[in-house]
Structures are given as C-alpha cells and as structure tokens.
C-alpha cells in the first residue's frame, strides 16, 4: 500500500512544481516552493533517507523560503512580463 502514498506525493509534487513556475505572484510562488520542499522531504524520508529529509525540511522549507520572502519584500511582489 506504500505505493499509494508515493503516488499521491509524487502527483502533488508535480502539481506544486508547475504552480511555482506558472504563478505570477512571487510571494505565492515562494510559499508554494516551500510546500514543494516539504513534499520532497516526506519523499526522502519515505525512501529511507532521513538525513536528506531532515536537511531538506530545514533548508528548503525553512531557510530558503525566508530568504526568498526577504528578497521579495525588498523588491517587487508581482512579476512583470
């Protein structure tokens, strides 16, 4: 039954990855990227790599998101094209 969890996580991963690229609101994209990192952390943990999962959860979902949000707060929030 574990493949069902894997499948759900992988589908969510693809959805969030596409959402990050498509979204024009950079703040929403940063938050979605944090969700992406968290799903990746769950997948790593599920693949018996808790070390990588721990690092991904702390760096990807924590530190990187905060740095992105700081960068957005110092520049423009919306992407222009």
């Amino acid at each position: 039954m574990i493949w069902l969890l894997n499948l759900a996580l992988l589908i969510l991963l693809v959805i969030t990855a596409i959402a990050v690229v498509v979204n024009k609101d950079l703040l929403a994209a940063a938050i979605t990227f944090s969700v992406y990192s968290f799903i990746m952390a769950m997948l790593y943990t599920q693949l018996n790599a808790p070390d990588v999962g721990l690092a991904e959860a702390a760096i990807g979902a924590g530190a990187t998101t905060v740095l992105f949000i700081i960068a957005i707060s110092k520049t423009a929030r919306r992407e222009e094209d």
Partner: protein
Amino acid sequence: MPELFEDVIVRTIARLLTPFIQLFALYILMHGHATPGGGFQAGVIMAASFILIAIALGLQEAKDRVKQKVRLPMESFGPLTFVVIGIICIACGGYYLQYTTVPLLPSLQAVGAILISAVEVGIGVTVMAMVTTIFFSMAGGKHDTN
C-alpha cells in the same frame, strides 16, 4: 524584516518554542553518530530557531542572542576544526583525517566516535553562524521601502 509582528499569540509561541527547537538541534548534533542527523542539519535547525526569533520578536532581539562578535569567529570554526584534526591525524602517523590513528583512548572505536563528533560540532557551528549571518545581512540594514 521591516516591522515587528505585533501578535501576542505568535510572540508567546515563538518565545516558548525556541528552547525546544534549540534542544532538538543539539540532540541532532551530538547524536549524529548513532541516529540520522549531523552537523549540517543541526546547524540549519539552530539557525532556524534564530530566524524564528527574528521574525516573531524582532530582528534586534535575535541579534542580541547571537552577537556579531561571537558569530564571526564561529564562522571560521568548522574549516579550522577540520584542518587541526587532520593535522593531528598526520602527526600521529596516519593519513589526513584518518581519525583512528590518534592514540587518545584504548579503544579504536571511541577515538573515531569522539573525533567524528568533534568534526560534526565544527560543521554545525559554521553552518549556524553562516545561515544566521546571511539572514541578518539580508534582513537588516540599508533597504529602501517601496
């Protein structure tokens, strides 16, 4: 971080949660030779606790907890630990970073565990100082509000 987040729930929870996050980081650091974890993860989690303080309680509060005077020497602590321990290993007749040649204790395994833990502590200190420094440098200081 432009302005303080004035919410009593967030401030209280952040103040209560911070010691536990730091304790977890120290556990990951010191127990990294037996359970998943290690220097990188512990350093980032420790830095995340200071980032939480900076977001919830204000940047100045976080800067008071890890002073720049302490943080800048800490940043060079990791490479220094590696170099010193590696040279000690060479001096004891082994290769660079061949920990088990150091005649510290009767048991070969204990020497490995102690020196590997020391190296992990060095890595963790460096990562913690670096991530907090990057955060403080980006968050504070000169920025034009738009």
